[in-house]
């Protein structure tokens, strides 16, 4: 049910990830003032973009679930949020490493994107205790979808608010990921983002398939016990 097109997708993800890694290490130039460590950018930023996309997608799937009443959409939303939380941990760790290397501190509060990300990540971490402390499966799906929708809408608001707070104390004209990347870096960045997206979708499908399979197995086992 979820495994349609899984093989070509996973091959594409492997190829894209390989290409991205090759480009990062052999093609993209070293940054003039940060040197080699700047290459963590090609992992950190795509990971952040994909994680945020996953959170918002989880909210949209939550809307589909409440609209249609089809619980498989809640499962999709859950897996998207689950993977995004894992990626989010990676974003925070790579962000800290990058901050340590280029500013000398593991954490800096005047980087609005990273700070917003921490707030969003803390909020989404509550998804697990919320979801797993509701027993009734129907209700669990419904409450989780409501959380996914509210949190998905919270993501952009939070980014605007944190940026406003920072702009107030540290005026910032251009975000450093915006338009000013030279061509080779830009290509590497775009390929890395594509690779991360494909990887995310592949893992998402894999997790959904395995969840579906284990649920079916449980159902079959229960039926077997009933007849035996």
């Amino acid at each position, binding site marked *: 049910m979820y495994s349609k097109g899984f093989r070509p997708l996973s091959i594409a993800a492997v190829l894209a990830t390989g290409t991205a890694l090759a480009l990062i290490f052999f093609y993209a130039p070293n940054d003039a003032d940060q040197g080699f460590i700047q290459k963590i950018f090609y992992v950190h930023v795509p990971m952040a973009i994909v994680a945020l996309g996953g959170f918002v997608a989880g909210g949209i799937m939550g809307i589909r679930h409440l609209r249609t009443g089809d619980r498989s959409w809640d499962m999709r939303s859950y897996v998207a949020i689950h993977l995004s939380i894992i990626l989010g941990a990676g974003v925070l760790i790579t962000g800290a490493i990058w901050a340590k290397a280029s500013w000398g501190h593991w954490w800096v509060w005047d980087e609005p994107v990273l700070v917003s990300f921490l707030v969003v990540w803390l909020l989404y971490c509550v998804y697990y205790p919320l979801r797993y402390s509701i027993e009734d499966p129907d209700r669990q799906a*419904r*409450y989780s979808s409501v959380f996914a*929708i509210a949190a998905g809408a919270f993501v952009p*608001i939070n980014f605007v608010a944190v940026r406003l707070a920072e702009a107030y104390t540290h005026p910032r004209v251009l975000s450093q990921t915006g338009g000013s990347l030279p061509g080779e870096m830009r290509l590497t960045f775009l390929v890395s983002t594509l690779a991360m997206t494909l990887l995310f979708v592949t893992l998402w499908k894999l997790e959904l398939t395995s969840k579906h399979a284990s649920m079916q197995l449980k159902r079959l086992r229960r039926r077997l016990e009933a007849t035996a």
Partner: protein
Amino acid sequence: MIRTAATILRKDLRIELRTRESVPAMALFTVTVYVLFHFGLDRDSLDGELASGVLWVTLLLATVIGVSRLFATEREQGGIDALLLAPVDRTALFLAKAAALFLYLLALEVVAVPAFGLLLLGPDLVDTLPELPAILLLADVGLASVGALVAALAIETRARELIVPLLLLPLLVPLLIGAASATEPLLRGDQAAEGLGRFLALLAAYDAVFVLIAVAVFDFLLDD
């Protein structure tokens, strides 16, 4: 719908007036936290960013108490089943609960803000707060709507006391940024209220988004 909401609200307010459970607890809590801050920071009077931060963080923490008690009477005495069996629109229920929380917060602030001025503000700052009511009102709308939504989300969970603060506080970060940054210049004493409009706009946008979301999704909570 408005009539139903008003009826539920009247019921909640009557219960609150008779039991005096939420608002006095919230007020007592804020004063205690001010005392804690006095000792924790070892300062007799605060100003600027520190004052605004202490004021707003304390109000947010007091809101957690109000939110976790919001459905308490219904839950403990089983009234929630009757409320849900009655042909009541969930939106009316949301409006009533959010309005109740809004009024609790107003009542709290009538006590908490003067107490803050008395205990922690320097004497020359106390009567320099003409814009504060506007900020408080805008923030209360947001606190009340997010609070009612979180209270309803947490009602079916086993670990309610844990879920409410964990869910509510990160959701309130944009509101805290708007409210604390808007209040900060007022508490600096030099009255340069720069950027006030921007933060009021942020608060208003936050309120609008969360009222709309809460109204849209409340139908799916609290059924059966």
